[in-house]
């Protein structure tokens, strides 16, 4: 099977909430748990037959029913998920785990509980700052989650099981990183859209299936021709992007997305855990300290600094900073980020978008203008 054939297969996988691999895993007795935010540690949802599934609404058309409850001024990601849930498209999930990441997601859980009453739902109270007290709080929150998971699903959440989950996650992240790092090359063998497809599959299928797919992808990508037909190397920064269409539209103008610093991207998503530490503390520490979201109210300068460093490391020509309309935290952050990037000498474009792909023509025009502004 060629690289392109594998990409087509992965696209099929991510086109449906219940993909064939997940369906098979459920038939084998595993329990998929939906989650929405990077402050929900995947390792904890991988224990003893659980499968973490980053919930998405692929192909979402409208959110008319969800708007009755969530209104039309909440972010379209939350609305699309509620629409899918009300349309029974998430009935296969054994439960939902949320983090109190933002107002919109918190209210999504409220409405889910009211409208569909899932058998299992839980909110992790993630602090809005770092520091010892915040870390202790978060560790306790994860401990509470583990207790609830053990009670409800009768699974083993002991230290050995946690250690195994850490090792498994590291193995998956290591494989993904090997592919992700190819994009640092001057002429990468993989486009941003192709890599995003791999990332999204890795967040929505059983880890075993994904590792097998990654081995095949690594073999085939090595034999692939390098990307040469692009005008500029770009970095995308922002919130949730779980649809490859957005990256594809950017790349259709001649840009090549080499760095993906957003919720579902590899930066800093593919964090490696120290296997010699206490597993729960290690998971809590890395999740709280390294998932750098604007909801962390003290970290703007760190976030800006790390974006600038990453942009230099990946040798990008420009940075696209995007957010989903109605997102308050990213809505305010993006303006400040763009100013900071420009002050650091990096061309930056700010884009407000809808969760589902809309206004493709306008988007393309704005990116073309951005490339031209950079003389690319």
């Amino acid at each position, binding site marked *: 099977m060629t690289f392109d054939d594998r990409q087509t297969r992965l696209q099929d996988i991510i086109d449906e909430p219940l993909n064939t691999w997940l369906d098979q895993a459920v038939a084998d007795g595993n329990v998929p748990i939906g989650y929405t935010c990077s402050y929900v540690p995947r390792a904890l949802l991988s224990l003893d037959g659980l499968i973490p599934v980053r919930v998405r609404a692929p192909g979402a058309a409208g959110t008319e029913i969800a708007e009755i409850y969530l209104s039309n001024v909440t972010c379209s990601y939350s609305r699309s998920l509620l629409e899918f849930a009300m349309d029974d498209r998430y009935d296969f999930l054994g439960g939902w785990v949320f983090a109190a990441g933002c107002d*919109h997601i918190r209210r999504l859980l409220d409405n889910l509980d009211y409208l569909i009453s899932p058998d299992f739902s839980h909110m992790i109270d993630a602090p809005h700052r770092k520091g010892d007290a915040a870390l202790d709080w978060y560790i306790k929150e994860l401990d509470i989650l583990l207790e609830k998971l053990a009670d409800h699903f009768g699974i083993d959440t002991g230290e050995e099981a946690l250690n195994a989950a850490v090792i498994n996650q590291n193995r998956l992240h290591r494989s993904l990183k090997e592919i992700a790092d190819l994009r640092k090359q001057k002429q990468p063998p993989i486009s941003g859209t192709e890599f995003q497809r791999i990332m999204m599959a890795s967040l929505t299928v059983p880890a075993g299936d994904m590792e097998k797919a990654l081995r095949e992808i690594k073999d085939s990508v090595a034999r692939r021709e390098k990307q040469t037909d692009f005008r500029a190397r770009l970095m995308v920064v922002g919130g949730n992007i779980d649809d490859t269409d957005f990256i594809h539209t950017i790349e259709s103008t001649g840009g090549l997305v080499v760095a993906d610093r957003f919720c579902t991207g590899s930066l800093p998503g593919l964090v490696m855990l120290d296997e010699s530490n206490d597993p729960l503390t290690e998971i809590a520490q890395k999740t709280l300290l390294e998932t750098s979201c604007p909801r962390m109210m003290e970290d703007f300068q760190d976030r800006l600094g790390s974006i600038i460093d990453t942009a230099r490391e990946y040798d990008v020509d420009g940075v696209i900073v995007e957010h989903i*309309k109605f997102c308050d935290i990213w809505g305010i952050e993006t303006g400040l980020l763009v100013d900071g990037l420009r002050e650091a000498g990096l061309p930056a474009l700010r884009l407000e978008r809808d969760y589902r792909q809309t206004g493709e023509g306008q988007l393309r025009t704005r990116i073309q203008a951005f490339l031209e502004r950079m003389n690319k």
Partner: protein
Amino acid sequence: MKPSLIGDLAVYGKYSLVNWMKIIILVVRHGPFDVIRDIRRYPWILVLLQVNSLMWRFIRGRTGRYREATAVVMSDIVSSVIRMMEDVFFRGNRLVIHEDMVPPEIMRAMGLAPFMTELMGILMPMIKPHSVENYIDASENEGIPPDICSLPKSTMGLALKGHLPPALAVVTSNLPCDGGMSSYMLIEKKLKLPVFRLDIPYNFDTDRAVKYFAGELRRMIDWLEAHTPGRMDWERLREICEERNKMLEYELELWDMIRIRPAPLAGEPVWLSHMWNFNVTPGSPASTRIYKRITEMGRKNLEEGVSSIKDERYRALLWNPPMIHFIDIYNWAEKTYGISLIMDSMTFNRIPMIDTGTQDSMLEGLGRTIMAGPMARHTRGPAKNYLDDIFHIHKHFDIDMVWVAGHIGCKNTQALNGMLRELCRRESIPLLIINYDLSDPRIVSREGIIEQIDHFMENIMKAEKMAS
């Protein structure tokens, strides 16, 4: 006491004169030339000077003790704003800018002068409805999305235009919403001051959360001691908390009285007195005196069987922050439909008294006042926190209808309207969700709000307007 026309006129004359006297004394103390210079520096002073027009809008048509209680509340606010101006003019070396969900009691106990930034965005449109539009526009011109709540946009606009007074530091938090929390990133960048941020848990209703937040408050005290000349005086904090407890005793008595139909007091003596005294000047003896006076007036009305409004036909609950650019909506509703707006979400709370026994118990008590207080309680934690209060108030205060101030910028509460609509229908509670924007009358005007209420009263309540 029977209301009389002369008595009612005298109330307005007396309190407007008192208010002007307070203003004139401040001008004399500060010096007229310095006042002119500061008006140019802080143009919002000109809006605040028009405070008597707001008092008139509140008391117009009201009579007797209800009219006087309203004037007393307004006069108290004038005194308090003047003290705040004195802090700006004379105590700049102690001034700390703080967000509206940070307890000012601690800063006062430290000998600091707290300046609540959001207060301008609240008070100015109350006095002059269009007065914060230039600040909202300034924020949007800076790239803040238009869908962000207009209150943080007003606050950011004040910072962007350089209309905030020089201060030593800024203290803020992750309350009450994402927009409010994030707005301080821009304010920090603009003011270039050291900023401290309090972290308040989502699940605040546990002992663990109370202790965590008390730890945050201790961290804030340490930080303020490191960044300002303020020093913690625990004895002073105990006095402030005890004074606050006294005020709360009076408020609880007032709430007991307004359960009775017709209510002996309603409107501003209930909601504005709470909003100001519990949020801006908690723990000051002046605030306790005001509550004592209002409660006494309510008690007398109750003893004499006097209703606050002439003909109380309906009793309503106003949920979410009130329409600040149409703040005389209470007065309008009384005169137009005989509606007493008995209770509101910014007033109702389930805050216990503060235990002043130890330093920890005071910090935990203050933490509870913030976490379980209005806004925080309703924008954090599960939807239950928001919804249960509405149904409790409906029953406890014998309410006939619920009005939700559906501020378009409050995504947090907009996302609960669907649930609320169905639950009210199930309980047969008439519900009106008013579409509007908190601070910006260009989105929905006063007339637009009235039109929505008229449709509801006519079609759902089958009400007739009162004869004018």
